[in-house]
């Protein structure tokens, strides 16, 4: 039995203007767990994450995080409760240096885990270590992806929403990325990972949830999703 989930999502709905995108999402993520959200382009993975962090205010449903309802809070308050968000488009502050990008993300540590510092993050992402004064706009895609994760970690989140971190990266960088994610897991950070790259996800995640047009259609162990033909053909016509 898992402990009571750290994040509990019930019947989450979200709209862009008049367009109804999320139709009642249900999700649970436990302490220290990595859950991968799998689904086609446009299925609603990114929208789910934006709704969780409050950038797209949910139109209905409950989100409980560390036993607190957060569905109606502004993004900054949600982030301060320990929810970190790494957007798909990375959204590096291009004019700011690497060190300044990290500074924007800095929030006081909460709980018992040691606080993230630029020093510790450079150990996690060695590529960034030599770039402290480089503007974010003059970095490669892989370096930007590492910076955007590091920037979020500066807020000392207990759960990180990672939106397609392997997208558009070279195999070598993807490899480094999975090492970093496993290191985070070892630190006890929970992760909600949106991915289309199942190979990448399989090595990291404990469980998978399949999303289709704004609904969770299947949840279970990632290995089942990978190897059970019936489940695969029903939900992953990839």
């Amino acid at each position: 039995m898992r402990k009571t989930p750290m994040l509990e999502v019930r019947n989450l709905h979200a709209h862009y203007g008049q367009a109804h995108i999320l139709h009642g999402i249900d999700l649970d993520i436990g302490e220290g767990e990595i859950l991968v959200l799998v689904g086609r382009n446009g299925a609603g993975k990114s929208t789910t994450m934006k709704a969780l962090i409050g950038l797209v205010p949910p139109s209905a449903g409950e989100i409980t995080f560390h036993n607190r309802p957060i569905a109606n809070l502004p993004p900054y308050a949600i982030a301060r409760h320990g929810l970190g968000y790494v957007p798909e488009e990375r959204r590096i502050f291009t004019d700011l240096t690497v060190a300044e990008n990290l500074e924007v993300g800095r929030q006081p540590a909460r709980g018992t885990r040691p606080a993230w510092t630029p020093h510790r993050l450079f150990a996690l992402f060695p590529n960034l270590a030599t770039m402290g004064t480089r503007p974010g706009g003059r970095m490669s895609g892989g370096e930007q992806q590492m910076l955007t994760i590091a920037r979020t970690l500066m807020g000392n989140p207990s759960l990180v929403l990672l939106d397609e971190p392997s997208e558009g990266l070279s195999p070598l960088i993807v490899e480094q990325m999975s090492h970093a994610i496993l290191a985070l897991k070892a630190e006890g950070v929970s992760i909600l990972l949106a991915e289309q790259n199942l190979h990448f996800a399989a090595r990291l995640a404990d469980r998978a949830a399949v999303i289709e047009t704004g609904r969770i259609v299947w949840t279970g162990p990632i290995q089942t999703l990978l190897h059970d033909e019936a489940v695969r053909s029903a939900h992953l016509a990839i």
Partner: protein
Amino acid sequence: MTALLIQLLTGLAGASTLFLVAAGLTVIFGVTRVVNFSHGSLFMLGAYIGWTILSRLPRDPGSFALGVLLTGLATSAIGSAVEMVLLRRIYKAPELLQLLATFGVVLILQDATQAIWGPADLTLPRGPWLRSAVMILGERFPLYDLILIATGPLILGTIWLLFARTRWGTLVRAATLDREMVSALGVDQRRLFTSVFALGAGLAGIGGALVLPQGSANLQMDLSVITDAFVVVVVGGLGSLTGAYLAAVLIGVLQALGIVLLPKATLVVVFVVMACVLIVRPHGLLGRPLTATRTDAAAIAPIRPATPALLWAAAALLVLAIAAPLIVGPFVLSVLTDITIAILFAASLHVLMGPGGMASFGHAAWFGLGAYGTALAVKSLAAPMPLALLLAPIAAGGVALVFGALVVRLSGVYLAMLTLAFAQIVWAVAFQWSDVTGGDNGILGVWPPAWAGPASFYWISLVLCVGGAILLRRALYAPFGFALRASRDSALRAEAIGLNPNALRLAAFTLAGSAAGLAGGLAAYAKGSVFPTTISVGHSVDALVMVLLGGVQTMAGPIIGAIAYTGLFDALLLATGFWRAALGACILAIVLLFPQGIAGGFNRPGVAGSVKRTI
């Protein structure tokens, strides 16, 4: 040569105060994406509050510095209050509504200032040190001007350090790039925005207090400084602090030299320089293309065709309007004539704002050009009424074509600020070129010929204005209108299907300018006179309020708005001495309660987030 040098230094001194205002404006815009019209009012309040404080302090340099700083703190507090009470509620509104709401603040603060300090200009008794001078090349040059010259770079350096070296500055720069991401990282945007406002308002207040020793605190300084500051910010590049300083120096020096070299054409010189900069660098000296703000502002809803019921109502109203001279007395008839003119004025602006997607804040320029065109034709060419009226749209449309060619490429806020600045320049020309325009006294005696009595003139006006509005409406449902809206919604896609968005926008700009010009020509005859106030910011805002009152997304909007507003305005004038504050409060109420206008007030998108434009 020496005189020129002295004049150059004077220009640099002026540039410093201008920079203080522009710096706040540009930093606030960078972070909040709000063009704060009321920034000039904070400058004016700085002068008045500074006067109150400084005239009570001893007249030594130390007390002066203290008084200026206290003034900055006071305006900073006022600016923060305005931000918390008003702007916070409209960060997601369309930019034109934001500009309009902050203009409402301008009106309220104008009346408040007048109520507190009275209508007279206030000058500061100057201590001896303020009167002392240094010798430069054998000329006496005021010491105070030298101090001002040093103030500009000093403040620039201080803000730069604040931005580069503090966490607050890092957050502000990050928010300028992507404020939504900053909030997702745990930073409370509201506090950040308020603190930026406090800084900007403080700088404006300090600027206001610093002009006291050489000038006065007066009720005109808010609009005159904001116009200059708009030009500075646009020339420097929106959001760029260093750009604002360079532009302030450029404009300040040009103005100072212009007074010596081309006393009559100073404003025109400034405008030509601005035009040159924008042709070479459309985003200003150091500006960059604006990244789309990451929060989705409420989009303008599509134009809805009129329902049959609405058409029947319009037809009934038209029959009444035609029969009116047989029913009502001369006073009501003159109000009705004003309304017909207001309808054409509002409808022409609506073409720009709605289907054209262009935020024009200086529409009175075209109205005024038409009015002066007609009046001058009557006075100096003794032109008969039909010819004089024909000249109105030609004059306004011609100038609109030239000015439009320069600005239609620019995006929303740039366009809004430049149209405003242009209208101010046209106003200044009308005001200063008294040999031709009569200056403040205007041009009198522009009466219709004997055959066009009040009733006939009303009918002429009705035919031209309502006919003009209907023609504008038809143009919007013709292929031209659809192409125009397609360009508004996506210039890229419009280009892909073979449209030329800039040419379409220019055509709309010229069309709207001509129509407003015709309205102006009629107004000249209706009033029998023309004054520079026809071109004032206030008159441009009249048109904006009419359009917004009616709602941008219906063609009936401007007509309903014109009727409602003309009625409202007359009622306010009769009912209260504080008509500006009352009008300002009405504007705020409209913006806060009916962001889509009265006609569209019940059609608000239910859920936050982006609303895609459909047509």
